């Protein structure tokens, strides 16, 4: 046995040494041998670009944008690697963690991106945005860039704007003579009126556990305002959560559950089935994102007779709340450049192109989604829904990110779990806040050990009242 073990380890060691010594390490993009530019002007620069747009129509739209870009820039090739969104989260972490990230990659805004920025994985592009009288910066719609900005540096471009609204069935509303509610009390009354044995007032598919949290997230914003949330959520802040609004918001959601407004077993219902409840008129309302626009309208998964029987309204105002009652809620997905890229200039050139009106219009044309480039959505490339949505975004005083994208990841998980437990009634609002405080204290200790007060979230401008 002894010499067997020795032999075993010896050969493993030899193998490892040969392997480590014999091969160049750290090929970008994980061992895919890419022709890197030599000193000569021969082969093109190849950039790896990772995206979650693996499904149609986004996939083809991106392919086409890339093809157009390559035609205009013969010296640069973009190798797009699409990955299914859920899997992407672990995949990008693994490759970043082992030091060979792709040159350009997809990010979700807020803490998800911030986490990458803290580890120094992302290239700031502030100077490029500001060049030529900040011509590039001005192209980006609204204030979305602020969620890509930390400590005064901007780390990428927001591209897709997605907001959540209450979608409602106009026929069911008409049948019960209900108007889209503007305030929380009107909303509660509407729920009571709409409720029937075969109709749930609201469809909720909470098996992935973040849809329920949207209610809490919105209520918190309405009650306390965006600025307070952002500073309370700062993982290096006090993390006291002593505003009674936190418990109140959770309680308001719990009251909603107890009122019986949701379909059967929301925690066992997928988002897709909640959507199906909505378009089969088994539910009168559905709080979901604009990503579902395509499923509900012509050509979507909903049956044809449903296509013209829905509309949407913003989350109702909460009486006596301190936040901006007209604010929208949403996120801004985008792209960043790796700080480890060997070709920063070429990567920036591509990002700039991706963010151009030309590319954005192409994307809108094919995907019917809102791209955060001024002038991207026009009467030629969009339908009435998208046009109306774009106007709403333009007019919004502010667009508040959902709580789970603002909170540090593990603290966010505590909130999400808490909301799921709240649906089944196995936890109290106070307990959820205790759990969040405890988790955040832990995170704070860890971040301080890493040493860095520079990780503070940049506080966005004041919310206009």
């Amino acid at each position, binding site marked *: 046995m002894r010499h067997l073990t020795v032999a075993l380890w010896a050969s493993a060691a030899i193998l490892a040494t040969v392997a480590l010594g014999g091969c160049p390490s750290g090929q970008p993009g994980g061992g895919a041998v890419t022709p890197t530019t030599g000193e000569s002007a021969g082969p093109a620069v190849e950039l790896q670009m990772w995206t979650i747009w693996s499904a149609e129509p986004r996939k083809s739209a991106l392919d086409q944008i890339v093809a157009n870009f390559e035609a205009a820039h013969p010296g640069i090739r973009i190798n797009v690697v699409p990955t299914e969104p859920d899997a992407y989260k672990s995949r990008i972490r*693994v490759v970043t963690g082992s030091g060979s990230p792709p040159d350009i990659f997809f990010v979700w805004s807020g803490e998800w991106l911030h986490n990458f920025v803290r580890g120094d994985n992302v290239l700031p592009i502030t100077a490029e945005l500001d060049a030529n009288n900040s011509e590039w910066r001005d192209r980006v719609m609204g204030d979305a860039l602020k969620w890509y900005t930390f400590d005064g540096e901007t780390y990428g471009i927001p591209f897709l704007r997605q907001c959540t609204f209450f979608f409602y069935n106009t026929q069911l509303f008409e049948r019960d003579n209900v108007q889209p509610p503007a305030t929380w009390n009107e909303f509660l009354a509407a729920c009571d009126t709409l409720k029937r044995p075969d109709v749930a007032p609201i469809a909720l598919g909470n098996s992935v556990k973040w849809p329920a949290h949207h209610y809490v997230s919105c209520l918190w914003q309405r009650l306390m305002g965006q600025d307070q949330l952002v500073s309370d959520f700062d993982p290096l802040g006090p993390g006291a959560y002593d505003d009674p609004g936190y418990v109140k918001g959770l309680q308001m959601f719990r009251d909603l559950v107890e009122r019986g407004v949701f379909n059967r077993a929301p925690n066992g219902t997928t988002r897709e089935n909640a959507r199906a409840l909505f378009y089969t008129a088994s539910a009168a309302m559905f709080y979901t994102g604009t990503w579902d626009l395509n499923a509900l309208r012509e050509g979507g998964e909903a049956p044809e007779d449903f296509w013209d029987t829905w509309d949407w309204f913003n989350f109702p105002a909460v009486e006596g709340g301190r936040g901006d009652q007209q604010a929208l809620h949403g996120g801004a997905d985008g792209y960043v450049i790796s700080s480890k890229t060997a070709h920063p200039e070429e990567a920036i050139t591509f990002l700039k192109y991706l963010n151009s009106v030309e590319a954005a219009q192409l994307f809108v044309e094919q995907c019917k989604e809102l791209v955060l480039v001024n002038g991207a959505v026009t009467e030629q490339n969009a339908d009435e829904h998208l046009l109306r949505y774009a106007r709403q975004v333009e007019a919004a005083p502010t667009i508040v990110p959902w709580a789970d994208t603002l909170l540090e990841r593990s603290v966010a998980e505590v909130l999400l779990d808490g909301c799921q437990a709240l649906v089944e009634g196995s936890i109290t609002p106070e307990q959820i806040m205790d759990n969040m405080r405890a988790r955040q204290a832990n995170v704070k200790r860890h971040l301080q050990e890493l040493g860095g007060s520079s990780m503070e979230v940049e506080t966005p401008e004041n919310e206009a009242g």
Partner: protein
Amino acid sequence: MSRRLAARLSDAFYALLALIFMLPLIWTVVGSFRASGLRTEPWGLPERLNLSNYAAAWEGKIGVYLLNSTVVTVISVLVIIALSAPAAYAFARLRFRGSSLMLGFILTGLLIPAHAVLIPLYQLNAALGVGDYLAIIGPYVAFGLPLSVLLLRAYFVEIPRELMEAAIMDGAGHMRILWTIFMPIAKPAVATVAIFQASWIWNELPFALVFIASGSHYTLPIGLLSFRGEHITDWGAILAGVTISVVPLMVLYLLFQKHIVRGLTAGAVK
């Protein structure tokens, strides 16, 4: 009750049980021909023979993924058997010091979840400079070994000692005994190992997802996932893809199944 009737009844019972077992697969095949309504009426039948899902799956390069999966699976299974058979033989028949410790060492591999070693393995692959096929075949072989060694060893132990002793008298070496005597007798176990490893590798996801860098080397499970978007999923195409991906394994299974039965009827073990 006559013996015949009892046999009939028992067969009917198993057939019914099999039908219940098959329902999900039948549902998949039926669903792959449906154009709509998979969510709201999950048990509906296709209105007519609709091939659009297959067209979508084919458009999604399912053919390329099929080829990739075949290459990876065949190579991995062959290497697994080539490596595990000698080891199983040694553990079953040779008394060397520390053999049970060594066996325990390899068996620990059974319990290791892929995710536990994902990052170190990725770094290893990057350091080796291997990507794509090689990057996943290595881990597949390593993770396939414990079960194969375990199963083959359990089978080898049952093979009568006299067979081996007689061969040694004839001057045969261990390798020859293994390949000319043990392996033919152990065909059922080898076939079992091959089938199980193949179905595992064919459907493996975490490694393939992280280690395969280029889209042209994607295996089937990743290919299937690419029909799942962030918010909208083309379940029709996925079901068509699943149907396509199940066929090769089904054929493999039917082929190997014969060997398992032959092992029995040949009555090699006496």
